[in-house]
């Protein structure tokens, strides 16, 4: 395990430069560049704010950032799953030519998604300062461990998705459908309180995806540490996904090249 991590670290320049390249290729020739990844959630949030403000009379100054963080987190999760599926298939030319730890390819996907997540959170921070003035920075920084957990979860999910997709290429489409369903089960666009008021609080409490969002939202919006139960559920989710990724990788990596 330690040796494997060391191998990953040893070829860091390779995967870091691939992440950099991915970002550049994705927005090649586009005028707005990476701005697109920020503009889309901003626009979606603006529209939803307008609608929900009328419907439920929510406070836009709280609900706006709530939505933005929700979209940022959700976009991260969906991109590690969907782009994660392609991690190995896309990198087959490298895998066929060089012996490198396979986990670097999902890592490349997860890092790319994480950069978009960080940019979106930066916008949220700026927005919060603009809407509410300077706030206690240390309290807000409690979102960092949540972000770390979310990243590890994303890396593990991308690894599992990539491994499954090599053997069963319909994975990406299945994940697409699955994510669509989870999107509505997770308080991304609606306030979590709505479910709690209707007696469906368990859906928020035990849904790891909802917990990841809470880990980001509570510190950034309310300036207080998130509940320990959210931390607990998120940590368990990371442990399960991580164990699945490690187990599958150790069993499948030796023969993987033959299935590409």
């Amino acid at each position, binding site marked *: 395990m330690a040796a494997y991590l060391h191998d990953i670290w040893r070829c860091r*320049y390779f995967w870091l430069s691939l992440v950099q*390249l991915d970002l550049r*290729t994705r927005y090649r020739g586009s005028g707005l560049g990476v701005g697109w990844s920020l503009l889309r959630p901003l626009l979606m949030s603006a529209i939803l704010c307008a609608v929900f403000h009328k419907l439920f009379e929510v406070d836009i100054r709280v609900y706006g950032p709530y939505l933005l963080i929700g979209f940022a987190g959700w976009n991260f999760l969906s991109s590690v799953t969907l782009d994660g599926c392609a991690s190995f298939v896309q990198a087959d030319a*490298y895998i066929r*030519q060089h*012996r490198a730890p396979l986990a670097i390819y999902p890592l490349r996907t997860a890092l790319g998604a994480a950069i978009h997540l960080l940019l979106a959170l930066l916008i949220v921070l700026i927005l919060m300062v603009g809407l509410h003035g300077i706030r206690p920075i240390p309290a807000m920084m409690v979102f960092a461990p949540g972000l770390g957990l979310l990243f590890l979860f994303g890396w593990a999910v991308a690894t599992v998705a990539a491994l499954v997709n090599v053997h069963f290429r319909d994975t990406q489409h299945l994940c697409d459908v699955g994510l669509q369903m989870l999107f509505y089960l997770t308080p991304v666009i609606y306030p979590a309180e709505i479910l709690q008021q209707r007696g469906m609080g368990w859906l928020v409490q035990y849904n790891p995806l909802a917990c990841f969002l809470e880990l980001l939202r509570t510190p950034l919006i309310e300036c207080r540490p998130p509940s320990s139960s959210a931390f607990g559920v998120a940590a368990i989710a990371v442990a399960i996904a991580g164990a699945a990724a490690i187990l599958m990788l150790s069993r499948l990596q030796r*023969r993987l090249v033959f299935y590409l």
Partner: protein
Amino acid sequence: MAHIRIDQADLTFRVRRHLRASFKDYVLRGLFRKSVNPVITVHALQNVSLDVREGERVGVLGHNGAGKSTLLKMIAGIYDPNGGVCDTNGRVSSLFDLTLGFEPDATGWENIAFRCYLQGETPRSVREKVDAIADFSGLGDHLDMPVRYYSAGMTVRLAFSIATAIDPEILLVDEVLAAGDAEFQERAAQRIEDMMAQARIMICASHDLASLQRLCNRAIWLEHGRIRLSGPCPDVVAAYCQSLAPESRAAA
């Protein structure tokens, strides 16, 4: 101390007639009728034992599909044997499918960096080598262009220049002795021979028997994934040539 030890290695892989089993194949055919996409088992290498020590230059001969490339990829650590042992000690550099693994949207310069990083270089060591690589490729200003727009010959030139810019302990060469135009080929041949001279161990698969005889001091002859003959290069090449001659084929 560079050393390759292969002991009774077997390598089989299972492929399907179509690349992938579809969902339909999994469920419908699996349950109700015979699969139209059956699994085919390929015995790429069987019971191969080989011990290569420093200073040895091994040529690998055999017909197409005899397992030459598979053997090299197993030594490079890309394929793992199903049975037996394949131990490779030493920094490996492989010249296989040279044109694979370029990022088409990145420029030549950037691709030089990617390839070097993949071979374990650091930004500092790349900076030292990048000019020599650019120089050897002779691509000049074309390196500022995305590789997407390169001709096949230009891609090979770039790939070859990068792949040969490191000094490996173990060099694996698979039929890349012909690359680019005549002028480049001459320089490439020289470069390969220099590398082969420097590397502690060299293993080269080729159909070019003359150059194998010139470059190698030992040879193995693979047939259907098994080692048919192993020994000093001239003896093995002679035996291989004899088997190719029409008389012996008629006799057999």
